[in-house]
């Protein structure tokens, strides 16, 4: 079978396995909406806050479905010997990676779409001003977060430790990157850290695409930082990938 067909088969296989894992499916799909609904309703967010919250939650979703999910996947599959087993078959590595990463990307796309729909229907946030910008930032975010996740799996010794490692990155990053509130009020140190990491810039880009309608020209820095992290992530992934 051709590499394209094998990639597609791997993708479909990953989708099937994803839905058979209720807790992963829950964390992937329910958590962002829980956050959105809780913060929007319980704390009675106003218009201005919602305009921050919707792109923020969308950015967090991209991070969770790619960085977090792929870190877990690769640590688990390495520890279980699944990666090593696959390496011993004629399956081209590119087909395997394509299927696994494609599955994560599918989750990211579905979630961002759902958040935009929910934001529009329930919270009266406008439809995105620029779909091109939206897709661009989601795609770059996926590449950056996904490759960083696979590279991060390299340093995690075993699956039991994975949650601690992932949350040590995920939680601080979402709190300083402006998922829930504007980063303007943050202490300088945190601001400096957030500015050097990709999530804040993905969120800025999504904010421009969905809410403010700023052109791409105003978000060139954000674009450059996310693209830079994508290059770093891809380099680290290729350089340090471990099959066992």
């Amino acid at each position, binding site marked *: 079978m051709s590499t394209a067909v*094998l990639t597609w088969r791997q993708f479909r296989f990953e989708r099937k396995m994803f839905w058979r894992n209720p807790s992963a499916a829950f964390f992937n799909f329910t958590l962002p909406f829980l956050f959105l609904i809780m913060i929007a309703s319980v704390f009675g967010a106003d218009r201005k806050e919602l305009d921050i919250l919707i792109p923020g939650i969308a950015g967090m979703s991209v991070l969770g479905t790619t960085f977090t999910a792929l870190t877990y996947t690769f640590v688990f599959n390495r520890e279980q010997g699944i990666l090593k087993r696959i390496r011993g078959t004629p399956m081209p590595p590119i087909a395997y990676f394509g299927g696994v990463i494609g599955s994560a990307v599918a989750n990211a796309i579905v979630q961002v779409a759902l958040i935009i729909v929910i934001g529009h229907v329930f919270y009266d946030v406008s439809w995105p001003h620029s779909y091109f910008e939206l897709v661009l930032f989601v795609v770059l975010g996926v590449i950056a977060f996904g490759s960083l996740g696979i590279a991060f799996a390299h340093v995690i010794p075993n699956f039991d430790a994975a949650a601690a490692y992932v949350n040590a990155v995920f939680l601080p990053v979402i709190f300083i990157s402006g998922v829930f509130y504007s980063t303007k009020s943050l202490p300088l140190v945190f601001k400096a850290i957030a500015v050097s990491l990709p999530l804040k810039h993905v969120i800025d880009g999504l904010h421009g695409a969905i809410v403010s309608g700023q052109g791409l020209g105003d978000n060139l820095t954000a674009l450059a930082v996310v693209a830079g992290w994508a290059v770093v992530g891809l380099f680290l992934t290729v350089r340090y990938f471990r099959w066992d």
Partner: protein
Amino acid sequence: MTELAIEVNDLRKSYGELEAVRGVSFSVRRGEVFGLLGPNGAGKTTTVEILEGYRERTAGEVVVLGYDPADRDRGLRERVGIVLQSSGFYPRATVREAVEHFGAAYPRPRDPDETIALVGLEGKGDTRTGQLSGGQQRRLDLALALVGDPDLIFLDEPTTGFDPAARRAAWDVIRSLRGLGKTILLTTHYLDEAQALSDRVAIVKEGLIVAEGPPSELTNRPRSYRVSYQQNGTRVEMETEDPTELLHRLTGEALQRGERLEGLSVSRPTLEEVYLELTAEQHEEAEAE
């Protein structure tokens, strides 16, 4: 096409300071079951995983089905089935899904249900792989190695941890593969397994092959003949490299004394004795250190 499925010449592998494989040479003919027998840490997995293309060798020559496994050619992987010493699978996939999914990567896969039956997992096709017992998972490993209908199969400790009944069942499967004309390279630290399955065995110790041959002939070592007879009601045993001379002397002396050498026998130690002797030496050395 050459008669040899595998050729290994002066293979060496070092992990930092440790030289795990120290100049191993052997060859495996097509259609043969070749056993690498040795205690834990002897270097069996290292050797096999170099042949499978997983590890890089430090020195030496290796040819597998005409390929150098270090090149990681897809053509080679299409013709080889691998059972690793340990490896898992997506725990939420069913047995049939797993076998089908793996089969798709090969040019001429076997029928999934037939493959499942071949390894004795019939009736388990819809069971999730995470729910299989240890022995059943090992059979799934075998099914996944066989689904591509390979010419050459690597089995690294295929029955370690099995109860005796499961081991017999696995042996039957491996024998049936031999019946299909497959070439098999097997590693084990169970002597009876090597004896029961292999056409030829190499005993590996500390990264070296210390004896090699068909299980019945694994005795061509110095002092490998045992001569014994009854004298005054007790059994006398002697070991020798050359029984001709010893027998000549013994029988000559007996004739001079006018006695008969009751119960005279010349035998070679079994593979078991060779193996136990070799591994015992290792234990003694380990204790001496």
